[in-house]
């Protein structure tokens, strides 16, 4: 069996003892090494802070159930992102089902109660980043998070999202353009407010 890497992005992951092969992986090891990555990915994919605990917990329950099937043929981060992505989508669907359309839209469009449209110009840092990410389509958002925030390579993204490599590049280009456009709109609004 091929050896796998448990190392996340440089200077981001809490490194754990790295077993030699996938069959030696234990879920608590995976949790210690990659909970930051899963948490960050779920947050970047649109899960609100009030729900992030539930989503991450659900991800690691799935990980524990499916860990025996992981054969180490891909990077474990790729595998974890696939699980996270499915759990997040299920979470969003559940939100849409359980609440009225208007409530869900409002919540999805307005991640923090304080981040109303009128206060957008005062956002900074991570909150502004999440707000701009919310303006991207889900498909573009996923590739943008993996390429720009997680700095994954094109083939890894293709594997994580089950896409052709050419599609990944095309989506990354469109996502960058959409993000730049959203940022320009924000800057213009900021200039008008000032």
């Amino acid at each position: 069996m091929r050896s796998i890497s448990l190392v996340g992005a440089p200077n981001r992951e809490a490194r754990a003892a790295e077993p030699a092969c996938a069959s030696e992986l234990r879920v608590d090891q995976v949790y210690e090494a990659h909970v930051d990555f899963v948490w960050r990915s779920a947050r970047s994919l649109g899960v609100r802070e009030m729900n992030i605990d539930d989503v991450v917990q659900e991800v690691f329950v799935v990980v524990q159930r499916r860990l025996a099937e992981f054969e180490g043929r891909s990077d474990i981060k790729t595998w974890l992102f696939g699980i996270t992505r499915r759990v997040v989508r299920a979470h969003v669907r559940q939100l849409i089902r359980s609440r009225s359309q208007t409530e869900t839209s409002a919540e999805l469009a307005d991640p923090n109660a304080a981040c109303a449209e009128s206060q957008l110009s005062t956002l900074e840092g991570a909150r502004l980043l999440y707000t701009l990410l919310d303006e991207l389509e889900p498909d573009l958002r996923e590739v943008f998070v993996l390429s720009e925030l997680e700095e994954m390579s094109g083939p890894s993204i293709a594997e994580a999202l089950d896409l052709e490599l050419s599609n990944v590049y095309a989506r990354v280009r469109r996502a960058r353009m959409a993000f730049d456009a959203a940022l320009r709109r924000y800057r213009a609004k900021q200039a008008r407010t000032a």
Partner: protein
Amino acid sequence: MSELSPDARDLIAQAQKQGPELLGPSAEQRARLREKLTPLWAAEAPKPPARSGLRWKLATAVVIAGISVWGATAWRPEPEPTLRAVSSRLPPAAAKTLTAAEASESQSPSGSESAPSQPKAAAHDRNVAYDAEGACSSHAECDPNAPHGSARACPPCATAACDPMASAGSARACLASSACDPNAPRGSARACPPRGAAASLAAAPRKVPARRPERAAASESLAVASLRAPARASMEQASEPEKASEPEHVARIAHSADYGGTRPATPRAERVPRTAAIVRTPERRVDTVQDPAPPSLDGELELLGAAQTALQKQRPSRALTLLQEHAFRFPTGSLVEERMAMQALALCALQRRHAAATVLSNLEARGSKSQLLPRVRSQCGL
């Protein structure tokens, strides 16, 4: 690939430095999550990854041995239908001829059969039974003057009193089917075999070969071309009066041949009797083709009902989706006009009046006299 603007890059760098949310959960959040997850992990213990112990090997061996023993004792291939079994499903006249053929087979030595290489056990095979009857029916093909044992030699007669080596026309010469006398008393030497036997038995094996149509057609044309005209005339004459009364039991035999699933892998020459090719006509093949199931009205009603509900709930987009699904599943359904009318209504609700007018004109072009037309027109204002 286009790059991110410097402003966007600065924003991401700034967010990663400032925003704790981007770095991951805090220590407190991490501990809380771990506390929640530990009992869940314990409750859902992972399956053993590798089954390599001695107990596993032993259990596997026992299971395999059990399957082998069961396979050797319980499973038996379905017995092939014997000639007698086939004859029990035929009309009395055909069964009688078939019984006579079986008797002649049992009496004749194996070396004098028309297919000497054919195993004796296979003579009771369903196909070979037809072949045997086909051979009896195609006596006209053989040459009574051909040397005994040659490919064109006549098969032994059922009476066993004739001599294949005798000259044609002599008292001991074997009788060809084409030379039989229809007016001769039944049971006499020159009596023709019953017509039902030839027709039904020749028609039955046409369903047996499950081959590609073009290959079947090719072999059929070859077989027909190889027959001599008198034989063809006699066979068609024999099968003609039976066509009106035969289809039911012919279809039954063909069905049992098609779905019996016990047909052995016999050589191609055995599978396609030459006499069977004569009556393998396209009209008769239609007998066993099953009509496709009619489209379900319930399914149509369900979809259109859901679309109607969506329209009433002011959700025309949802209604259009359901109507498209209806058009995909039931393109020629019974409720096409209703679907088109509802499509027009949904398009009107979406302020797509031009598309609604197109749908309405299509509906009118179908010559529809539906009561829905004026209602749709009034609602859409078209």
